């Protein structure tokens, strides 16, 4: 029996800014195989982004994609995925992804589109306005050069407070490879430099007006009940407290106690992980974990004074206003300090006030010099690995802070074998998609009650999900490959629906005595929204297919088995405990002082290829594997 359908808006909007034309494509061309979000964007990227296309070429496409669960009542359904050829990937510009939370994606669906393909290069700066069938190209003269907050306020003044905006700051305009796309005060698409791609296309913003639009749901009653059930199962996630000062060190908590006004959140979220902060004399804004990258240096310089707090807050707000990635800054800050301490950087040649490291003056100068490409800022705007190649001897210290692909450390690869594999096998920092594994295997076991997870409970969950307790044992590379493949498949599904990876998959539930979550949640929510029943196993298969398309794109761009690795220092360097903790920049300090055993690592990689059905010599999916995943066309093109 075929009932009501729901989920998709059924249309994909192509916007070509070269000739200021639009085209509408039926979503069903891609959604049948690839669901939505990351999946359909990967399908489009395979079809349309050639390997030889550069990130700043007019031929590059930026695909903003929502999924069938975006903007529904499913918890955490406010996110979307952006895919394109990235200027930030290293050593080559390759296709990668970057997620973004907020409300823009929901507004896009209400305006009638599942995705936008932005392509071409405008002859003069412009912004795009989307209102149903009406697509307008407006001159951006008055907002070009303005920061992201001013830009959005001007656009809202013109088009109404209810519209949603994604935009770039001056960093994106100046093609900084570490530029972000920003919505509201701090919903950002970072790490992949897509702000610079918008800048290269001379597109300042995309404004969406979804007024009057609706998102269809096939089984409303069922969805309401399921959403209530999963909100209860997800319980009170400590991340909400974390951003209000839950995590050590104590000075985070003191900062939040002084300045937190409340929380802020993406559409339909049960977690509400942004704290909203107001520090005297500076712009108020919402803030996330990585945004505190300058807290320690500022407090070392000023102590916990108002001036110190203002330096911390200015580092957050100015990054987002200029459109620079705070994750990149989290790597820059300790790396530049290290270079300076080792005599590889001086005030005169760098133009940075290095003796005032930790001051507000230092961070303002650094951010502005990068944005406007002044002095050493012009080099740093190329992103850490490219800067490390250009600055004399800088590479010698670089690898301590950047484990692979030129991206900032995010959970130590040396501490956690599964995380090392996730890093090695991806095109970018993978950890933004794998909070579920990290929370189960690491974080929750460190959190205090009532949010903590006893090691035995974590092992029982691991056994249920991965079929083995060893999947979360960090002392060995054994039994990690299977968990890694599982987590990648699930992340592909989540990024295609699109749900938030902080909530899904639900490995652990704080509201249950035995702490067991429910990994069937996504399939049940999807069935309720679309009206077509799909089970967990089938959905995992779709995830596997999407992961293989992403891999096929990487292979076509030159990815090989040899490139599935980490920077060499991870296999060589032995550290003291103090050194190890200094190298970790992203909240959780590393503790592992020993290098990774290359043989163990390679053995686990071989197991992974075997599970994936990829050739053990080349790391390419075999024809048989691709055909089983209904990807015959890709097999033909890749091998033929």
């Amino acid at each position, binding site marked *: 029996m075929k009932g009501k359908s729901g989920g998709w808006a059924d249309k994909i909007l192509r916007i070509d800014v070269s000739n200021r034309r639009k085209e509408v494509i039926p979503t069903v061309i891609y959604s049948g195989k690839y669901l939505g979000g990351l999946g359909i964007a990967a399908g489009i990227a395979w079809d349309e982004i050639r390997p030889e296309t550069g990130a700043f070429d007019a031929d590059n496409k930026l695909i903003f994609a929502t999924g069938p669960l975006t903007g529904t009542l499913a918890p955490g359904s406010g996110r979307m995925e952006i895919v394109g050829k990235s200027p930030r990937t290293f050593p080559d510009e390759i296709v990668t992804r970057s997620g973004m939370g907020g*409300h823009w994606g929901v507004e896009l669906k209400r305006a009638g589109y599942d995705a936008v393909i932005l392509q071409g290069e405008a002859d003069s700066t412009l912004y795009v306005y989307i209102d149903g069938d009406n697509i307008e190209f407006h001159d951006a003269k008055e907002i070009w050069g303005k920061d992201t907050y001013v830009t959005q306020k001007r656009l809202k003044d013109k088009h109404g407070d209810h519209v949603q905006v994604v935009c770039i700051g001056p960093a994106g305009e100046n093609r900084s490879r570490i530029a972000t796309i920003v919505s509201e005060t701090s919903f950002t698409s970072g790490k992949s430099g897509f702000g610079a791609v918008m800048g290269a296309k001379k597109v300042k913003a995309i404004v969406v007006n979804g007024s009057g639009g609706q998102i269809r749901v096939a089984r409303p009653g069922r969805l309401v009940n399921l959403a209530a059930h999963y909100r209860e199962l997800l319980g009170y996630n400590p991340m909400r407290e974390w951003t209000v000062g839950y995590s050590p060190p104590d000075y985070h908590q003191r900062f939040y106690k002084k300045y937190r006004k409340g929380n802020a959140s993406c559409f339909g979220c049960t977690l509400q992980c*942004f704290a909203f902060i107001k520090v005297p004399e500076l712009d108020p804004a919402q803030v996330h974990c990585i945004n505190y990258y300058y807290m320690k240096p500022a407090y070392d310089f000023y102590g916990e004074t108002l001036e110190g707090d203002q330096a911390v807050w200015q580092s957050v707000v100015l990054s987002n206003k200029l459109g620079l990635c705070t994750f990149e800054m989290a790597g820059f800050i300790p790396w530049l300090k290290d270079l300076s301490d080792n005599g590889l950087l001086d005030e005169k040649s760098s133009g940075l006030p290095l003796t005032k490291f930790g001051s507000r003056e230092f961070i303002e100068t650094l951010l502005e010099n990068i944005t406007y490409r002044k002095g050493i800022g012009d080099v740093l705007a190329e992103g850490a690995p490219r800067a490390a190649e250009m600055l004399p001897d800088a590479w010698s210290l670089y690898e301590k802070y950047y484990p692979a692909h030129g991206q900032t450390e995010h959970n130590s690869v040396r501490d956690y074998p599964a995380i090392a594999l996730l890093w090695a096998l991806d095109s970018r920092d993978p950890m933004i998609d794998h909070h579920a594994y990290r929370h189960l295997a690491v974080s929750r076991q460190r959190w205090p009650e009532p949010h903590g997870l006893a090691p035995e409970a974590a092992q029982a969950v691991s056994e249920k999900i991965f079929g083995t307790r060893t999947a979360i044992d960090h002392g060995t590379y054994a039994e990690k490959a299977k968990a890694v493949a599982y987590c990648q498949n699930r992340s592909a599904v989540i990024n295609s629906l699109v749900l938030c990876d902080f909530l899904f998959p639900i490995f652990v539930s704080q509201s249950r005595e035995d702490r067991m979550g429910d990994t069937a949640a996504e399939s049940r929510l999807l069935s309720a929204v679309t009206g077509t029943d799909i089970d967990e196993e089938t959905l995992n298969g779709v995830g596997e297919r999407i992961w293989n398309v992403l891999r096929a794109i990487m292979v076509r761009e030159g990815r090989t088995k040899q490139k599935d690795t980490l920077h060499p220092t991870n296999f060589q360097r032995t550290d003291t405990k103090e050194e190890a903790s200094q190298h970790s920049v992203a909240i959780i300090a590393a503790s592992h002082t020993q290098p990774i055993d290359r043989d163990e690592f390679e053995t686990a990689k071989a197991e992974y290829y075997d599970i994936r059905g990829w050739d053990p010599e080349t790391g390419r999916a075999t024809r048989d594997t691709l055909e089983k995943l209904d990807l015959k066309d890709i097999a033909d093109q890749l091998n033929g």
Partner: protein
Amino acid sequence: MNTRRRQSLVANPNACTGCRTCEAVCSLIKNGAISPDMARIRIERRPFEGEFVQGICHQCSIPYCLNACPVEAIGISEKIGTVLIDKDICDGCGQCEAACPYGVIVMDTEDEKACKCDLCNGKPQCVKSCPMNALGLVVFGNEVTR
């Protein structure tokens, strides 16, 4: 003159984060699709100030909408004292929408008639769904109404 047992939503704007779950659940239940414009509860988001304010129907003691209605389509339910619109009588003139000081009467885009919060018959789904417990239901004592 008669007495009325009044119930109403209450909202705590300091706890609201602007996630719009309440609007989603309201429009889904009442209209069968998610459309914040159609929700009987409104979230005003001021993201640059960090202010998120709920617009709720107060089921007023002296309802502006009821008094504004020229065709007497608006009445008060005997069971829980909710201010209700009878769609069979409503002619869609929009005077109640204009009269409501809280801006929470919405005109249905399909049948062009007015609709408003009916407290989901005493079990408001927005209250149940709010992840921040920023909404509640209060039951007042008997009130004298006109």
